């Protein structure tokens, strides 16, 4: 495993407090960022509610965007941490192993067949795609849980989901719908409404609750599945718990924000030494860290100069892919 020296172990809760404060600060900060230059007095005016435009900007544009960053970022960070604990592999991440791409395919399929645009069928289809991909991966990883076979399975699932998505787009009768889907798949929180938040939030919260229940089991898995079982953990129940939780989180997130990769890879990787590599204690900090990362990254894309706002998924991929390469390099000894 990673050979870096572990930093001094923080007092239980200090890390959580720090990350919570970070999320809070970034959340407030993100409310002030956007094309319209607004300051703190404007926020109070918006809350007081005597200026219609200010109100609309804060409540209809900025707040949903920040809320989605928290929900999607938190759920992606948590999904990564839980999947890595389940598969005992630091490279297991929804984007890397094809779960996000499969959710994207599910969403595209639902969009393709639904005339009404975004409806409840989109997150449901995305969650189904995510669940099937995770289940398939677990079946493949059970035979041989090595890093290499997991990554290869991920490559295959990614390729399959990508091919099916391309097929759906290829057969799309409407070129405008096509451009929309491609843009949306890149991942962004721009121009999202309360409707998106309300649609995704219940599923994401449910998924996160399931994943947060997995801590005890993931801790047992440090010594492998059989020892975990001998310690009173039910491995089948644990697999189902994490698979369902991750599918709910990733599916609902992808349905409203598109594919935002590498959050679940980068965040647990950074935080793991700070919790003594304990897969259970990693869960909450990863959720907070994911929320902070996406709030920060989403603020960054709004701060960058230039006419065209960068897609968030593009930014996270630019940050995440090098980390992924670094992780492959440092875990190469595990590859057989």
């Amino acid at each position, binding site marked *: *495993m*990673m050979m870096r020296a*572990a930093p001094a172990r923080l007092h239980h809760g200090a890390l959580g407090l720090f990350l919570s404060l970070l999320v809070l600060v970034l959340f407030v900060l993100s409310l002030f960022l956007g094309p319209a230059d607004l300051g703190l007095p404007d926020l109070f005016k918006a809350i007081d509610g005597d200026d219609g435009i200010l109100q609309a900007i804060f409540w209809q544009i900025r707040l949903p965007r920040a809320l989605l960053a928290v929900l999607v970022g938190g759920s992606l960070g948590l999904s990564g941490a839980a999947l890595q604990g389940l598969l*005992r592999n630091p490279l297991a991440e929804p984007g890397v192993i094809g779960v996000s791409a499969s959710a994207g395919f599910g969403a595209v399929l639902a969009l393709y067949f639904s005339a009404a645009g975004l409806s409840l069928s989109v997150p449901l289809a995305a969650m189904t795609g995510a669940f099937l991909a995770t289940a398939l991966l677990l079946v493949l990883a059970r035979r041989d849980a090595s890093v290499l076979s997991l990554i290869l399975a991920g490559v295959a699932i990614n390729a399959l989901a990508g091919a099916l998505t391309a097929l759906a787009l290829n057969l799309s009768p409407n070129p405008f719908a096509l451009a929309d889907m491609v843009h949306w798949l890149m991942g962004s929180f721009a121009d999202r409404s309360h409707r998106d938040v309300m649609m995704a939030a219940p599923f994401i919260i449910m998924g996160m609750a399931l994943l947060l*229940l997995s*801590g*005890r089991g993931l*801790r*047992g*898995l*440090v*010594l*492998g599945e*059989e*020892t975990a*079982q*001998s*310690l*009173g*953990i*039910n491995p089948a129940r644990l697999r189902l718990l994490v698979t369902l939780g991750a599918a709910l989180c990733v599916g609902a997130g992808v349905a409203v924000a598109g594919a935002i990769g590498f959050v679940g890879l980068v965040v647990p990787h950074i935080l*793991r030494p700070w919790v*003594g*590599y*304990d*897969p259970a204690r990693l869960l909450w900090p990863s959720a907070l860290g994911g929320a902070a990362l996406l709030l920060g990254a989403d603020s960054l894309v709004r701060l960058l100069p230039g006419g065209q706002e960068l897609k968030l998924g593009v930014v996270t991929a630019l940050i995440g892919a090098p980390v992924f390469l670094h992780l492959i390099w440092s875990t190469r000894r595990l590859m057989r």
Partner: protein
Amino acid sequence: MTLAVRDISISLDGQKIVKGASLAVSSGELVALIGPNGAGKSTLLKALAGLLPYREGAQNVPVSASTTSIRKAARLRAWLGQDAVIHWPVTVERLVALGRLPHLDAFQAAPHADREAIHQALSRTGCLHLADRPATHLSAGERARVLLARALATGAPFLLADEPVAALDPAHAFHMMDLLAEEAKAGCGVLVVLHDLNLAARYADRLVLMHEGQIIAEGAADHVLDDHNLARSYGIRVARGPHWLVPVGRSEP
């Protein structure tokens, strides 16, 4: 107290591994389960640990892995698997604390009783000085003792260990067997799979010899390790001294 299975059969991937074996371990005794590779020792041990479903008796009554609550079963017997992998570089103390999992509720942090049990397990195995080291960076001897400490931390009345001395040099192997014997003396029922026949003869109160999924001899070392049994199960000839035996070749078929 006795942990026992009677006339059980186990099939894995359609192959019959254990064929009607009966085995019992009582509190305070150290039982060595011996036999050649592929005899079914590990599989039988896993069945006793509640990790594998099996069939029982002449009627082949299926017994699932968890007839009672899986957590309750985990408190009854600690299982120390063969070459267990440690997947994350957690500290030795955290690793040993895993032994307390059967006692914890999902939302509960380790209370005082757990701390005491963890400390006890570390001190009895001579691992206190390792407590803050990453569990992935240990020598084979340290690692074996730490994994034993993890099993002891459960405080279960039965301990099932699968080849705990496989990777150890003679001195470390003696140390490990001393620790297991101490546990038995303290009242734990210890069942240990061994390949070293001398260690088995020296430490075990009772030997159980397995061959092709069946138990073919059971009892004191003199009786179990006679020429006939060794030729039949291991297919070896041995030279003997007062407290030792050395394989000198394969027996004629």
